């Protein structure tokens, strides 16, 4: 039976160390919505999403109350729209109508974000995919909740440099199109290599074509919990350090697994994967940079940062695999600079540079993430 210390440990993680289930993401396949008539296609997509996900938010909130663990976001990911809309959309503007439909459907069911306004062009680009990519700046400027992603390379096929060049322009156009709102469009756009089909985290979530009709994926987080656990083990050797990260990752992942199974049961949708990613927020004590500093760095960006991050990522994955047989998505540490209090401080002090960040991306699951670049001075 559970004892009082275990109960207190769990509640302390939730109350003081920001342990939360970051997202329940329902993946919905739209492949059977394909239609050569644009209006009919939009109608089918809207109906499909609003029927499938109608209980998602309510069930998420119910589970949060039952277990006393916050579930911060409820989201939807859909089949890459370049595939679904290819038949009906002849121009970039046609794709924008689908973005608006997705936005409307997301509003109707009450989710925070809907991902899958995507194109997978890691080897070549079809006309439809190019049209979708060209529509991204307008689509993101004219919707609130739609997230977009483009996969431009994979380990097997290498990089599609035409797509890379095009995406460079699209990122700038998106920033320009949403300049009145801090260029927020760019925060809803991801350029990927090796994009996983089952990632629950935004903005890069989409429902891959290898997936089932509908599926529940859960993303768990908790950088604060790892940091506090390491604080308690201060001064110990590397073995203890690694062991502590693994044990903590295990505990966090188990909470995600429980929530995912429960959501899958209550919604009648199969359970997909758990993604344990240490995803920071600007809140104090919810920072990946602080974990790296707890490991022993003077500041994030100092010599040793890449090694510490590689070790953190490795141990998080190992702990996660032990806790759940269905680990997927990105699983690792996120390093979104402007969302992490410790990284913001490091940049302000000049400790963290873009070159260092580039090195860091080589050892963790994400690339350059949430970095604000000032416009050139006139």
């Amino acid at each position, binding site marked *: *039976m*559970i004892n*009082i210390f275990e*109960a*207190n440990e769990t*509640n302390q993680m939730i109350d003081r160390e920001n342990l939360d289930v970051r997202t329940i993401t329902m993946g919905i396949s739209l492949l059977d919505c394909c239609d050569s008539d644009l209006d009919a296609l939009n109608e089918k997509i809207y109906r499909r999403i609003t029927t499938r996900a109608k209980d998602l938010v309510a069930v998420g909130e119910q589970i949060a109350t039952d277990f*006393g663990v916050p579930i911060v976001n409820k989201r939807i990911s859909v089949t890459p729209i370049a595939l679904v809309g290819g038949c009906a959309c002849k121009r970039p503007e046609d794709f924008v109508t689908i973005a608006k439909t997705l936005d409307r459907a997301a509003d109707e069911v009450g989710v925070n974000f809907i991902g899958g306004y995507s194109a997978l062009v890691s080897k070549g680009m079809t006309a439809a995919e190019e049209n979708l990519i060209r529509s991204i700046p307008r689509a993101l400027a004219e919707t609130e909740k739609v997230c977009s992603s483009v996969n431009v390379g994979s380990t097997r096929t290498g990089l599609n440099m035409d797509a890379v060049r095009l995406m460079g322009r699209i990122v700038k156009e998106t920033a320009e199109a949403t300049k009145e709102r801090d260029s927020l469009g760019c925060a809803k756009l991801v350029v990927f290599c090796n994009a996983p089909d089952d990632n629950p985290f935004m903005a890069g979530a989409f429902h891959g074509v290898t997936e089932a009709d509908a599926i529940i994926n859960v993303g768990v987080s908790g950088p604060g919990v790892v940091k506090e656990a390491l604080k308690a083990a201060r001064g110990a050797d590397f073995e203890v350090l690694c062991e502590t990260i693994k044990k903590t990752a295990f*505990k966090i992942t188990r909470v995600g697994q429980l929530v995912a199974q*429960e959501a899958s049961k209550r919604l009648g949708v199969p359970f997909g994967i758990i993604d344990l990613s240490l995803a920071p927020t600007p809140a104090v004590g919810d920072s990946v940079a602080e974990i790296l500093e707890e490991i022993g760095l003077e500041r994030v960006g100092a010599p040793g940062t890449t090694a510490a991050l590689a070790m953190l990522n490795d141990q998080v994955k190992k702990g996660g695999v032990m806790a759940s047989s269905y680990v997927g998505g990105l699983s690792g540490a996120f390093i979104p600079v402007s969302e992490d209090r410790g990284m913001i401080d490091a940049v302000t002090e000049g400790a963290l540079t873009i070159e260092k960040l580039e090195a860091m991306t080589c050892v963790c699951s994400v690339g350059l993430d949430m970095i604000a670049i000032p416009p050139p001075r006139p």
Partner: protein
Amino acid sequence: MSKAIITVVGRDTVGIIARVCAYLAEKRVNILDISQTIVQGYFNMMMIVDVDAAEKPFEEMVGELKTLGEEIGVRIHCQREEIFTAMHRI
């Protein structure tokens, strides 16, 4: 049997257990186990309860216990047992 765990943490005062137990009895919640300690003047209690025969939906009890805690001046959490077993048992 569906079990829940109620934890109570806060400054010690007279009648905390009495009031929590009175509430549970009124709602027909059976207490299976209680453990309690005082750490540096702070009251710490955990109860394992059976909520099968409870007269109220679980969500409502969670809310009412939280409110009761605010009246007494302690924090009361009521959670399904599974979250603790998932985390602490292999």
